[in-house]
Every structure is written in C-alpha cells, then in structure tokens.
C-alpha cells in the first residue's frame, strides 16, 4: 500500500473500504495473470522436457505399436498450442485430467494428499512459532549476549543445513538407534488399513473417533518431520522476530514507557511485542506457505504421502497431468496465503486502524 493510499484511508472510513476493495480487485487481476503464467510455464516445460509422457501410461517395456497408438489417444500428436488450449479449457472447469499413475482424477488425488501436507506444515509452523517468537524476543532484548549468539547460530544452521540431511540424521538417531519415533509413514501398517480417516488430518480424526492408540501412533510418526520443519521455520521466525523487536525497542514509546516506570516484562511482552506482532503475522504466514510448498524434500525423506511427495513421484514418472495439477494447487495456496496475510496486515496495522 502506498503512502498516499495510507493517508487517504486514515482520513475516511468509506474511502478505506474502497481502497481495500480496489486493492482486492488488483490482487485478483494479479492472481489470474499469475495463474495463467503458471499454467503456461508448467505446461510448456512439461512438454519440452526430454521425457515422453507416453512412458507414464505404458511403462518402460511397451512395444512400439502400442506406444504410437497411445500417443494419438493422448492427443500428443496435436500441435502444442492446441494441446495447451484444450488443457486450459478443461482446467477452467476444474478438470485437471486423470493421473495415469493412480488412475484417479488429479483433483481426487490432491484432495487426499493435501490434508497430509497441511497437517505436517501446520504442526511445523506451530512448533516454529511457539519456540521461534520467544527466542527472537530474547535475542533482541539481550542483544549481543551469549543468548543472542546462540539464537543466531541456531538460525544459521536451520538456514544453511539442507533439511533432507537433517532429516536423515534425525531418522538414524531417533528412529533407528533410539526408537523414540516411528518409521517414515503416516501410520503403522497395523492401523493404516483399519483406520478410516474423516478429514484427512489423522491426529484430528483419531481424536474425534476417540481412538487414542491411533492418535498416539500418528503422533509418533509426525513428530520428527514436524520438528524438522519447525526447526526450519523457527530459524526464519526467530531471526525476523529479533529484527522487528530491535526496531520496536528503539522506538520512542518504549522510552516513554520506561520513564513511566512500567516493568521491563510488560514493556517487552506487552508493548513492543504487541506492535511487532503485526509484521510477525506476515512472517508466520509466509513461513507457513513456505512449509506447504517446500516440504517436498521432507515428505520424500519421511515417505509422507502429501502433495510434495505426490508431485515428486509424478515428475519422476512423467505423469504430467498430476504435476500440472499439483503445481497449480500449490500456486493457489501460495497466492491465497499471500492475500490473506496482506489483508490481516491491513486489519491489524494500527496505522490503518486509526481511521
């Protein structure tokens, strides 16, 4: 939002509503353009990569005559532009085609895979936020101290060490050696074929059905990958919290509050953090979106049947409908979360509230 808009919004309530609506409109235009771009780029990349999508349908060992026939059936003999037109036409109607790997409509697969990713990313973000925010605050308050250094090092490691490597280390230590957590999957085999999920969020489903043994089993499976994602997001959240807090602590109202004799605890947690909370919402939301789309490697290491693993497997198998569908869904979520955090930012920012 520009400064001019900001001032106008501060002046009149209705004008503010108009501003929000107009920025919503602009956002929609951007979103639609982004979608189309996403569709086009993914589609054409999918068609020019040197992998024959017919292989996905027929496997490695099909005879030549069958390959030729299938190519015609799949419409791959049509000009690229025509193929793209057909694809977009179907996509607009919510039809992303059929995954040749699972034989399900892509949307059905995604509906099944997505809850797994959301469950993992949500728990990861929770862990990251619950630990990251206090750590960031501490680091800011004790700037330059040992605690500050430690927080920064923890952040640095979270940033620079590849997550799949930490994942493998975690598996070797906590699963193979110590047997504290369960094996890479969502549930033990005993439960996997007896438990009927409702929402697809296994922790929630198990709790709703009062199946506490399933709940515990699901927990033992999710805790390690979620902790890793949590660590990853903690690194980001703590660093941003630290810098927001440093910014707030340097403000005049803090000096004023100190002069009034407020306790340090209240100043930090009550005043400074409250004001820093506004940009924090965006940071946490972005981190959440990041975990949703960036959990590909974690899902692969932990055999977590979410959207990341789905897209990875589809890519490896040249299952282009699934790749395209998955990419578009992830893109939508990213665009959606951006929109949401943007709106939240506007709602929470005291400067926009003033009007």
């Amino acid at each position: 939002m520009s400064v001019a808009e900001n001032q106008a919004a501060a002046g009149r309530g209705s004008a503010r509503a108009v501003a929000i609506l107009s920025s919503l409109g602009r956002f929609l235009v951007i979103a639609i353009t982004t979608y189309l771009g996403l569709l086009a780029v993914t589609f054409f990349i999918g068609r020019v990569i040197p992998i024959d999508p017919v292989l996905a349908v027929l496997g490695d060992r099909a005879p030549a005559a069958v390959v030729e026939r299938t190519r015609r059936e799949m419409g791959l003999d049509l000009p690229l532009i025509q193929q793209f037109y057909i694809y977009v036409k179907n996509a607009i109607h919510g039809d992303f085609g059929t995954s040749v790997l699972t034989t399900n409509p892509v949307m059905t697969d995604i509906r099944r895979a997505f809850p797994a990713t959301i469950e993992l990313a949500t728990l990861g973000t929770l862990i990251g936020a619950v630990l990251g925010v206090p750590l960031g605050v501490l680091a800011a308050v004790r700037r330059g101290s040992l605690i500050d250094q430690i927080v920064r090092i923890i952040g640095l490691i979270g940033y620079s060490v590849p997550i799949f490597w930490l994942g493998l280390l975690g598996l070797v230590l906590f699963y193979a050696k110590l047997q504290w957590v369960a094996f890479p999957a969502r549930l033990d085999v005993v439960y996997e074929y007896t438990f009927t999920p409702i929402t697809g969020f296994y922790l929630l489903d198990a709790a709703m059905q009062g199946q506490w043994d399933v709940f515990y089993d699901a927990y033992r499976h999710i805790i390690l990958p979620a902790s890793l994602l949590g660590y990853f997001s903690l690194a980001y959240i703590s660093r941003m919290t630290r810098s927001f807090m440093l910014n707030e602590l340097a403000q005049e109202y803090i000096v004023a509050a100190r002069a009034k004799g407020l306790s340090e605890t209240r100043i930090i947690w009550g005043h400074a953090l409250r004001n820093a909370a506004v940009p924090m919402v965006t940071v946490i939301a972005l981190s959440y979106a990041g975990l949703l789309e960036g959990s590909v490697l974690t899902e692969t290491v932990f055999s977590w049947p979410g959207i990341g693993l789905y897209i990875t497997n589809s890519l490896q198998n040249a299952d282009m409908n699934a790749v395209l569908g998955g990419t578009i869904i992830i893109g939508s979520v990213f665009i959606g979360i951006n929109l949401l955090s943007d709106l939240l930012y506007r709602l929470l920012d005291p400067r926009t509230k003033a009007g």
Partner: protein
Amino acid sequence: MMLEKFAQRSRSLLAGAAMSALLVSPAFAVTPADTLVEGLAIDDIISMDPGEAFEFSTAEVTGNTYDLLVRLDLSDTSKVKGDLAQSWTVSDDGLTYTFKLKPGLKFASGNPITAADVAYTFERVVKLDKSPAFIIEQFGISGDNVADKAKAVDGTTFQFTVDKAYAPSFVLNCLSASVGSVVDSKLVKEHVAAVTPSADYKYDNDFGNAWLKTGYAGSGRFKLREWRANEAVVLERNDNYYGDKAKLARVIYRNMKESSAQRLALEAGDIDVARNLEPNDLDAIAKNADLTTTSAPKGTVYYISLNQKNPTLAKPEVRQAFKYLVDYDALASTILKGIGEIHQSFLPKGDLGAVDDNPFKLDVAKAKELLAKAGLPDGFKVTMDVRTGQPTTGMAESIQQTLGQAGIKLEIIPGDGKQTLTKYRARNHDIYIGNWGQDYFDPNSNAQTFASNPDNSDAGKSHTLAWRNSWDIPELTKETEAALLEKDAGKRADMYKDLQQKILDTSPFVIIHQQLEVAGLRKNLKGFALGPSFDTNFVGPVSKE
C-alpha cells in the same frame, strides 16, 4: 568462544532430545504376526490389470494373485507344469493345444472357473491390445480371429490354435507369462465401461480395463485388496484357492525406494523383508544376528550398447574393443557384489540353451590393438546416457575409467530413467547403459530383442534392442525366427547357443552381468524364497514363528 558456542549448541540439542524423550516412550516396532510386510520399490506399477500390466512389481503381485493355465516349473525352469490346467495335448500338426481344466475350481469371488473364463481372458487381452498383448498375438492371433483361435470347447476344455508349428516349449512358456492370468469373466463383465469405437479401437466396451487397473478378478493364493500408487499394495488370503492355502492372512508391499531406508526399517522390525538392498547395506544385514539374506539369479541382464548410427562405434574393431575395456572382475567384487553375477551372453542362466562361459576380461593392450586396426590409435570422445541410481552409475564410472586407459574419453550424461529411455528409444544416444528383463520365460524373448531387427529404418515397427542401436542384421533375424519353429528342444537349444556366440563376436552389445535379486529378512520368517523370475516370488508359503 567458538568452542563455547558449540558446547552451548550441543547442550541445547541435548535438552531438546531429552524433551522428546519425555514426549515419546521407546517402543520396539513389530509387524503383526499374521502379516508379511515387505519394503519394495513399487513405483513402477501403472496398472493392476493383467491384460495391461507389464512391470516387474506388477508381475510379482499378479503371480501371487492370479492363476494361469500353466506355470513355470521351479524345479526345472526349462519346463512348465499345469496350474489351472490338469493336462494338455498338442495336435499332430503342432497347431492346436487342448487344455483340460482341473475340476471344482473357484475364483476368489466364489464364481466357478470355466473354460469360458479362459477364452474371455484371451479375448480381452488381444482386443485391448496393451503392452503385453504381443505375447499372445505373436501366434497369429488378432481381435478378428481370437474367438476361433482361443475358445471354450466345453465347460472344462479350452482350445488354443497357433498359426505355425512352433516349438511347443515356446508356446507353453508364453502362456505361463502373467498376461495369461485367467480373469473372472462374470465379475469383469459387471464392471465394463462403454467406449466409443474409433479407428484405433473398434470395440464398444473397455473389457473392464478401467476397473481392473485397480480392481481384482483372480483366483490366486492371495487376492488384491488395495493398490495405492507409490504407497502400498495390500494382499489378503484367498480362502477359495484350489491348492494349499496361504499361511499368512495379509501381505503388504510398502513402497520404499532407498536401500538405506529399507535397511533401517528392517533392523527396527517395521518391515519383515527388504528387497532393494545395495551391497553395503546387504553386508551390514548379513552381519546382524536377527537378520538373514537370500538371493536368486533373475532373467535380467545389464549391458551397454553402442549406437551404430555413430560411424566410429559402427566399426567392428571398436565394438570388439569395448568388450575388452570393462573391468568385469573389479565390478563383480565391488558394485555388483551380492547383487549380480558376471554373465556375457544375452540369455540369462536358467533359460533353455543359455551359455555361461564368459570369454572377455579387461585387456587394455588387446583393445588398443583393435582400436589401432580401426584407425583410432589415439582413441576418441564419446558420450554415454546413464540413468541415475545404482548399479548403473557405479558401472558407468568404472567403465569410464577403463575406457580412458585406451584413450577413449567417455562423457557420462546422467539422467532420470524416463529421460534416458526416451532418448534411447529415439535412437539419439551414442552409448546406453541399461538392463533388459525378459518378457516371458523363453529364450526367444531375449533372442528376439538382441538378435533380430526386421526393419532397420527409422520407421521400423519392431523396436528391438538391435533396432534401438541401428544394428542391421538380416541373417541373424532369420536365424532367430528359425529357432522358434524347431520342435526338438535339444536342437533348439543349439540354435540359441550359436546365436549367443555370434552376438559375443560381433554385436554392439557389451553384456556385463545377470541380476541377482537379493532380500534381507528377519529370522522369524519361514518359507521365504525368491524365484527365478519376477512373477515367481511367491509369498504363499511364507509363515512367521
């Protein structure tokens, strides 16, 4: 300072670990007593319809869930034995095979198994015309004549008519391939979907293909309960099975690709069998007192091939030089240790007529001599397409090094499996490294692909391995066809021996080893054995103590 930070970090990590310890109690995982859990890379599965599926993993599942007319005799793999068929006869002219079914057979659904089901099985395979259909169609059978060529004479008599007097061993071996898995016609017909006929497909229904992709209509020891792509295959005991019932109630194949992940899960007891182990993990498992290993040679050979479109690689001396530039012994003792046996002929051990003398050794001097004769004393530069993963990557690196000793600079082009395969099929490679598993358990399967190329033009319809490498061989093609019609098994074996020798002497194929399939298993398993082919890894006899 740095050390202090480090200590602090480890302390906080330890504190974190301690916290997790409070949150989760240690528990040793054990699979249920009535369930076998195998870790296996099953990401190749694209359909469970036996009329369509043509992948290694599917072959294993189909082998355990469907029955055939005849099946490979595991005590002598050059023969078949009756499965659903009690007996069979071949007419004097060698064209008509008449099978008598065992009495009282039932599908898992409870429906009786009749000769009409067998006839329907062949009809749908041929009319669907998917990847494995050629195994049946090569006997002169098409959608137009299948009703006459594969028919039920009465409730328990099935007749199969071929177009030439082929070697009976060849015909029977083909019928033992999983494409011949007998389906429950009553059940399938309940699930057919309507299709609009087109130039490519002239029938008005899909013969239940859409449903059978994930469905099941068989009579095997196990029935298929569920296949979740890239996740798992779940089998359940079939209590209607005609023979000895399976000992376990359930078998679960879990998709696990990584050797190390399989090893961890096996050690922890989360799986009972690990199926895709690399040599170092195999070693570790062999040393573990709770675990054991087993292995079996499979009908899959690994080879490199030289595209004859490349004029340098087309020189006979160069082709031969490559065969002396592979360090077979070093490969056998490292990358292939426990998972492969050096084998240089195109027929895998166990096939009728397979030759197992391996004439080539690493001999740089001899290779240099051959290269000099070809006018290339200083070697040359060439590329090789390698699909990432073991053992191909390790093999490629070893070959790169030994080729270098003779002045051949090999550039490795790594790629995803699908990527290298696309290039290979389009004949756009220089050198390709890969594996070839036979399509059915008969010498013709490999002879046809390595030693025949009916039309070497780019438009050629028969994309054999010889075609993929642009190797034009009209004489060998004829010899391959002739071996099919030889009824005397001894003479037929000699013909294949001769073909193998010619391939060794002249071909652009450097065949390196035959795959040894391995498995690591928990010691409480009884009766687990790997078979000679992918559809003979039977889980029926397995039990737990």
